[in-house]
């Protein structure tokens, strides 16, 4: 019986990254990173611009302070069982696309969530809502990657905080506790402070769909008290958000903490 649980594989000829103490650890599902394609090397998937944007943020953080430890740390995680052959293919694809700096984590289907917890992941990103829910049920903050972000910006990481007046999550859509969102948001807010008002590689955006301007005002104040000073704010007054999502171009969305 195979006792394989979690296997973290480093590429042998790459110096293993030392995980900084206060790193903001983000795990991205391999299914989102690569697009299935024929041939030896997988194509770039939905998460590519996100990974590039995260890379840009890290580089700029180091420019500001070469000893900065509160950076992003990315783990590429497989959420189902991966054969050895496929592992090699994933690693060579990662190399081919310049992603060899990131750690891989190959897990059995049943326990990719264990792997998330063991790696102390702060945020799990995927395009699969079932995966997101499973991770959330195990206490890991999850977010769905915006499918539109596949063609989105790669020079700026854009995170959308959504605050809506509707409080009840529909079944299967739980993605994290209030505290988890707050905690992650605060860390993003702190990271944002490292850059000036203009030309920031990280942009935090607030969207309120319902509830009018006062709802938006409460959300702004609440985020501010969590240390999150958003750059952009959109109050939709009930109009469908699908109209402007292609303009907002977030890489992923977080539910702003509700009152």
């Amino acid at each position, binding site marked *: 019986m195979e006792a394989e649980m979690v296997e973290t594989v480093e590429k042998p000829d790459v110096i293993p990254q030392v995980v900084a103490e206060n790193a903001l650890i983000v795990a991205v599902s391999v299914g989102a990173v690569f697009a299935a394609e024929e041939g030896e090397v997988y194509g770039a998937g939905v998460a590519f611009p996100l990974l590039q944007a995260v890379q840009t943020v890290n580089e700029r953080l180091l420019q500001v302070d070469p000893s900065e430890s509160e950076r992003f740390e990315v783990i590429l995680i497989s959420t189902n069982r991966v054969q050895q052959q496929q592992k090699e293919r994933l690693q060579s694809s990662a190399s081919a696309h310049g992603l060899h700096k990131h750690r891989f984590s190959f897990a059995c289907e049943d326990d990719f969530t264990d792997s998330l917890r063991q790696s102390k992941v702060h945020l799990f990103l995927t395009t699969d809502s079932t995966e997101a829910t499973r991770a959330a049920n195990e206490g890991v903050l999850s977010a769905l990657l915006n499918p539109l972000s596949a063609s989105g910006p790669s020079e700026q990481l854009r995170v959308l905080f959504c605050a809506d007046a509707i409080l009840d999550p529909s079944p299967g859509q739980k993605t994290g506790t209030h505290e988890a969102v707050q905690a992650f948001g605060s860390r993003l807010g702190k990271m944002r402070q490292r850059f000036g008002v203009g030309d920031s590689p990280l942009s935090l955006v607030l969207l309120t769909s319902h509830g009018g301007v006062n709802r938006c*005002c409460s959300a702004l104040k609440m985020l501010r008290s969590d240390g999150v000073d958003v750059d952009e704010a959109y109050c939709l007054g009930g109009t469908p958000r699908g109209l402007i999502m292609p303009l907002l171009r977030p890489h992923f969305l977080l539910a702003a903490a509700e009152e």
Partner: protein
Amino acid sequence: KNGHSGVNSRECESVFVSPRPENAVTIAVSTRVLFRTEKEEKVFEQQGIEEYLRYQMEHENEPFAPGPAFPFVKALETVNARLRELYPQSEELFDIVLVTYNHAHVGVRFINTINHHNLFIERFCMTGGGSPIGYLKAWHTNLYLSANADKVREALAEGIAAATMFMPEKQTEVSESQLRVAFDGDAVLFSDESERIFKAHGLDKFFQHEMDNEDTLLENGPLKSFLEALGKLQKKFYAKGHRLDCPIRTFLVTARSAASSGIRALKTLRAWGLEIDEALFLAGAPKGPMLEKIRPHIYFDDQMFHIEGAAEMGTIAAHVPYGIAQHHNSRKKPAGGT
């Protein structure tokens, strides 16, 4: 079905019927024309953005004073109140959207100001530096008012009626019960084709050209669609017997002459199915005194000369940076021009 919904697709979109922007007459107003922000702009110019944002947050609980677009927006709300009385279920109302490329740090102050003045604004976008034009298009904006001529030009290029507003030194009192909107004709409601003739060949040629082409419709101008939108709402009042006390009144204020060149303008409007309540043909006389009598909440003209003249007499005027007039100096008085 997933699409855009992220972690927070907690809405049941079938339960809430969202207003659809295409049914409303959407008016996008920049914070710099709805409110007076000159002091803050000075801080920005002299001390840079970080200091500007700090200043804004420090004064967060101090509402801004009304700007040049304020009376216009208040009048829109008056019309909405009357429309709601007559058509309680209808979405065909004015929808006012506040637009700024300020950073969201200033958001709280703007919202406090909206509440202080009892403005009914449910939507806004603070783009943190990016262009708002994409959002205006997405929301089917019918009119965009801004202090920034470049942004106005950008909007016009995208087919959105737009105009630049300025704060007049004095403001004459305007009606609180009736929205009054005045338009110049050429290069505002109509294209600038006739103005081109006048500028290139002079007044006589202009008259001849207009007479020869009396039965040819003029082409659309950038504000035609806005007049159309106003007309649709007016018809809703007429349908319920409120023609005489309609809370929307439109004016054409043109340098054309009633007996000659004005005929083509009227024929064009009629062919477009657009009613204008009052057409004033000045035959080249100054517009200021006439506007002072009309007291519109807003007057659209393509020539800065007329805008300045209107402002001198306390009329709130909005410049439409369109057409041949943009290449001419505003300070020179055109002899009996359009």
